[in-house]
């Protein structure tokens, strides 16, 4: 008898809790983004080795420094490729013999931007081979225009007077910057 009563209540409960469900599918694709530019512009910068201040003195590279350029980027991550790097290389021209052009990228600065910014690898010597200048950029945007992002400091250095050649007195270097997956 108890069993029948239990079954009866079960049936009644089914009746009371009758309900219906429907579904609405939501699909969203967030696009992959990898944008990089140089601010305030990509105009040529000049690094100059002036004549010595005194006869017999070293060539003066005090003018051979430029920190007017900034790297801005907007970069998304994916689960399979969570970080990107900024790669620099000389794609046209040669550094004069006996000299080096060094580049240092600061860590991110500026009031704008958010996310996982890249890390400066420190100073690199520019060459015709690609080198990482900023590493481990996650999903991030630096803020746009100068004074946002990573400040670049270029400097000219004399490393070997014997190799210097006065015929190579003016060299134009074309440098590329690439934001690429790790």
């Amino acid at each position: 008898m108890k069993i029948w009563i239990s079954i009866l209540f079960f049936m009644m409960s089914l009746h009371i809790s009758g309900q219906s469900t429907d579904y609405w599918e939501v699909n969203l694709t967030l696009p992959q983004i990898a944008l990089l530019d140089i601010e305030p512009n990509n105009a040529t910068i000049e690094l100059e080795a002036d004549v010595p201040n005194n006869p017999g003195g070293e060539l003066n590279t005090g003018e051979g420094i430029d920190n007017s350029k900034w790297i801005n980027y907007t970069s998304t991550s994916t689960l399979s490729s969570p970080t990107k790097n900024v790669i620099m290389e000389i794609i046209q021209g040669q550094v004069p013999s006996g000299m080096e052009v060094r580049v240092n990228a600061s860590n991110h600065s500026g009031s704008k931007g958010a996310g996982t910014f890249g890390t400066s690898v420190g100073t690199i010597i520019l060459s015709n081979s690609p080198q990482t200048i900023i590493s481990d950029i996650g999903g991030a945007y630096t803020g746009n225009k100068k004074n946002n992002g990573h400040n670049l400091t270029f400097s000219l250095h004399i490393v070997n007077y014997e190799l210097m050649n006065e015929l190579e007195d003016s060299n134009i270097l074309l440098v590329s910057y690439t934001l690429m997956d790790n």
Partner: protein
Amino acid sequence: MNKFLISFFLVLFALLPTKSFAQYITISPTGNSNIKIKNIKEAGDGYPNNYKTKKVKAKMSVTFNNASKNQNQKWQILISKQDTFWDDELQIWLKGKKKKGVDSGANQFKQIKNYDIDFLGGKGKVSNVQLEFEIRNISITIPAESYSTELVFTIIEE
């Protein structure tokens, strides 16, 4: 024993038809359900502050098998989501527009969670209640992937 069996089946047959007097909810998406994301054109820029997608729309109907409930049967709709692949930072906000028969919860966006919350309440049969959702909190910091979830509408009689 046979008496019990006969009694049981009599009750069972009496109850089965009443069980089928159920209420039904139907969601019918309308228009373009593709969700477009704004293009970022300048390096250094993110999505605008408080960026949200355009609204995606559907129509909702509540019906009953039992015509006697078409007028005054009170009901409540619960809403939740079941994620196939989703990022917790992405917020889905849903709104149902006010219409005759919808007594509570209309005209206000509610954030959909992974558990049931009250969405709309009303009584009787209603049709073509406009629903719309938008996705908020979209950010560059969220991995660029394809996300998928399902909004689950459950109607219960009150």
